[in-house]
C-alpha cells in the first residue's frame, strides 16, 4: 500500500533543519503524542512502585516500601508481620493459599478416617500416596531405596519393602507399629557353637525347605540341628520354618531372601555359602523409631504408602 501521510499532504515534510553536504537533510517524523504519554505513565508508575515496594539498596540495607506489610506464621507458629517480600508471600501462600487450604481439608479427612476407610476410598488413597511419596523420599529412601527395594550391591543391608514378605507383619497396624517404634532385627551368630560342617548341613536344610535342590543327607543332618537344642533355630523360625513375626524372624520356606543373597548366586555352592555366612555371623539390623521425627499424620501416610508398595497383608 502506498504510504501517504495526511499530515504530510499540502505542507512540505518537516525536516530537522540540519543540512549536510549542502543539501542532505533529515526528515523529522514526529512520534505520536500518545506514545510519549505512555512513556511518562511508566515513569510515574515506577515512582509509585519505588514507594510501595522494596526497591533501592542503600548502605547495607534497602528501602522496605511504605505501608506495605505482610503477615504470616513462622515455624514456631507465631504471627510475624514484616515488609512485603516474595519469600514471605510464598510462606503465606503455602499456609493459607488455595492449594494449601485444599490440602489441609484432605489431610483432615485422612486423619479422621480409619485405615480401612482410606484403603477403600480411591480418592483419599490417591491423595495419601502422592503426599507420602515425598515423606518416604525424605526419610525412608536413604535406607530402603526410593522404590522400597535396594540395589543388588546393597542386598541384605535393609529389607526390601516392595515385596510381600513382611518380617514384622504387613497389616496397617503392624506397619504403623514398625515405623512408630522402630525395630531391632537380631539373630545370634552361630559361628562359635557350630563348626563348618554343621553350618554346611544347616544351610543345606534351609535351602531345601524353600525348594532348592540340595544334598539330602546333609539336609537331613541339618534338620536335626535346626529342630534340636544344638541350633535351636525352630525357636524363632518355627518348626516349619515359616518364621515368627513378633521376633522379626524371616520365613525360610518362601522364595524371598532378605539377608542371604541366594537370588544373586548362580552355582549351588554359592547359595550354600551365602546362607552359611548368615548363620555363622548372625544378623543385627536396626530400624530407628520415627515417632520422635515424624508427626502422627505423616506416619499414617507412610503406613498407607508402604502397605501399598508390596500389596500389604
Amino acid at each position, binding site marked *: 500500500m*502506498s504510504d501517504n501521510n*495526511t499530515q504530510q*499532504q499540502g505542507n512540505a515534510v518537516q525536516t530537522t533543519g540540519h543540512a549536510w553536504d549542502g543539501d542532505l537533510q533529515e526528515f523529522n517524523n514526529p512520534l505520536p503524542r500518545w506514545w510519549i504519554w505512555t512513556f511518562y505513565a511508566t515513569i510515574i508508575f515506577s515512582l509509585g512502585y519505588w514507594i510501595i515496594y522494596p526497591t533501592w539498596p542503600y548502605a547495607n540495607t534497602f528501602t522496605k516500601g511504605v505501608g506495605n506489610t505482610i503477615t504470616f506464621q513462622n515455624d514456631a507458629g507465631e504471627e510475624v508481620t514484616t515488609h512485603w517480600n516474595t519469600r514471605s508471600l510464598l510462606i503465606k501462600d503455602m499456609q493459607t493459599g488455595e492449594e494449601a487450604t485444599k490440602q489441609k481439608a484432605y489431610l483432615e479427612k485422612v486423619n479422621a478416617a480409619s485405615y480401612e476407610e482410606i484403603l477403600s476410598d480411591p*480418592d483419599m488413597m*490417591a491423595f495419601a500416596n502422592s503426599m507420602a511419596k515425598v515423606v518416604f523420599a525424605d526419610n525412608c529412601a536413604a535406607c530402603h531405596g526410593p522404590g522400597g*527395594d535396594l540395589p543388588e550391591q546393597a542386598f541384605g543391608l535393609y529389607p526390601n519393602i516392595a515385596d510381600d514378605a513382611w518380617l514384622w507383619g504387613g497389616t496397617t497396624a503392624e506397619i504403623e507399629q514398625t515405623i512408630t517404634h522402630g525395630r531391632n532385627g537380631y539373630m545370634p551368630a552361630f559361628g562359635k557353637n557350630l563348626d563348618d560342617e554343621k553350618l554346611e548341613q544347616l544351610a543345606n536344610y534351609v535351602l531345601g525347605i524353600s*525348594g532348592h535342590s540340595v544334598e539330602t543327607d546333609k539336609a537331613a543332618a541339618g534338620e536335626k540341628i535346626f529342630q534340636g537344642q544344638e541350633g535351636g533355630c525352630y525357636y524363632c523360625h518355627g518348626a516349619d520354618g515359616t518364621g515368627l513375626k513378633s521376633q522379626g524372624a524371616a520365613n525360610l520356606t518362601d*522364595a*524371598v531372601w532378605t539377608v542371604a543373597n541366594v537370588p544373586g548366586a548362580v552355582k549351588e555352592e554359592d547359595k550354600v555359602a551365602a546362607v552359611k555366612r548368615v548363620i555363622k555371623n548372625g544378623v543385627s539390623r536396626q530400624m530407628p523409631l520415627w515417632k520422635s521425627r515424624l508427626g502422627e499424620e505423616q506416619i499414617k501416610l507412610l503406613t498407607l504408602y508402604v502397605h*501399598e508398595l508390596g500389596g500389604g497383608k
Partner: protein
Amino acid sequence: MENEQDQAVGHLYEARKSIFPRSVKGRFRDLKWGILAFAYGVYFLLPWLRWERDTGRDQAVLFDLVGRKFYLFDLTVYPQDIFWLAGLLMLAAYLLFFVTGIAGRVFCGYFCFQTLWTDVFVLVERLVQGERPARIRLSKQKWDAEKIFKIGTTHLLWMLVAFFTGLSFVLYWGDAPQLIGDFFTLQAPFAAYATALFLTATTYVMAGHAREQVCTYMCPYSRFQSAMFDSDSLIVSYDAKRGEGDKGRARAGRNLKTRETRTEAGVGDCIDCGYCVQVCPTGIDIRNGLQIQCISCALCIDACDTIMDSLEWPRGLVAYTSERQVSEGKRARLLRPKVLGYFAVLMVIVTALVWSVSHQQKFDMTISQVRQPLFVTLSDGRIQNSYEIKMNNKTGANLMLAFSLDGLPGAELDMGKFQAIILAPEQRLRLTARVRSHPDLLVGGSHSFVFRATPIKRDDLQEFMQNAVFTTP
C-alpha cells in the same frame, strides 16, 4: 530560546489531530450496524444463556479456570485438549489470510472490535454533542457549563459502555448470575475486579481516545496484512479518471451543474463536497489514493453514493474495486494460487479440528509402569510389577469401571479394593495396580499385555484398552 529551536526543527512529538466523523446513511453503513448489533448481542448475552448439562454447570459458555474445564454448549474441553486452541488460532490466522487475500481489510472495516467499539463511542458522542459541525464547535468553545455538561456526559456514557464491556468479559469465567451478584456486593474474586477494571480502562482509552491510532500505530495486522495483499485484492478506491476529468475536480458552481456541462468544461464528476473525507473515521481523503490508514470501512462509498444519488448521477465514483481494475481496467481475478493455497491450508485445519473435536474420548486412561523397582520377587516365587493408572471421566455421569488383564499368562491383577470403581462425573483419579505372574510362564525380559477397563451398564462407551509391559528378571 526553546521556542526558536522548536520552530527550526519542528516538534519531536506530534499531537493527534482530532477527527469528528460525520454520520452517513447507506447500504454499507446498514450492513455494519447489522453486524455490530449481532456481535454485541452475542458478546453481551452469551454468558446469560443457560444450557442443560448432567454435571450441573448450566452456563452455555463457561470458562472454568478453577475446575480446569471449558464448557462450550455440548462440548467440554479438558486441559488435555488444549491443542485445540492451537488449531483454533491457526484457523483464525488462515481465515484472516484468506479473507485478506480476497477482500482486503474487510476484517478491519466490519468485524474488528476496535472498529465496532469505536463506532458505538462515536454514536454516543453524536447523540450527546450533535453532528460533526456541532462537535467541532464544541471542541473550540470555552469551558462553559454547556461544554462541561456535554463532554462530561459523553465520557460518563463511554465509561459505562466500557464498564459493561469489561464486566461481560468477566462473566464468561464464572457462573454469570452468581458472579454478577458477588461483583456488586464486593464478594467476587480479586481477579474479577482486576480484569473488569483493566478492560474498562482499555476500552475507554482505545475506543474513546486512541481510535484510529490503534489501527495506524499499534495493530500488528494492519502492518503485516500487506503481505497477503496484492493487486487483485478488494480495496476502496476513488475513480480518479471519472472524478478529476482533464482539469481536475470542481465544485458544482454555475455552469457546472450537469454532467454534460462539466464534460464540456473538462472537469470531472467529483464536486469536491468533501463528504467522503468528513465521514472517514481515520480522517483521510480517499481521493489521494490507497493509504495505510484506510480500514476499508466503506463509509466514504456510502457518502459519495448519497451525493451521486442526489445529483442523479451514476453511483461508483468511490467504490470497491481492485488495484488491477484501477490500473489495467481488468476485472480482479478471484482464484489466484495464493488464495487457493490459503484456502487449502484452511480446509486442512478445519477438517483436522472438526475430526479431533468430534472424536473426543469420553474416558481417558494412561498406564505407566513403576520403574523403581521394575519388578520384585514375591514370597511364592512370582514376579510383581506395579503400575500407575491415571484416569479421567469426561462424561457427565457416574462411570463404573471394572479392570482386567489380557494377554499375560497366569497373570493376577491386584488393585487393592479398587478392582471395580466408580468415577464421579468429570473426576480424575490415580490408582496403583500390581500385576503378578509366574516367571516360568514367561520367557524373555518383557511382555506386552493389555490393560482393560470395562464400563459397566454404559452402552454408550466402549471398552477401553491400553497396552502395558510386564518385566521379568
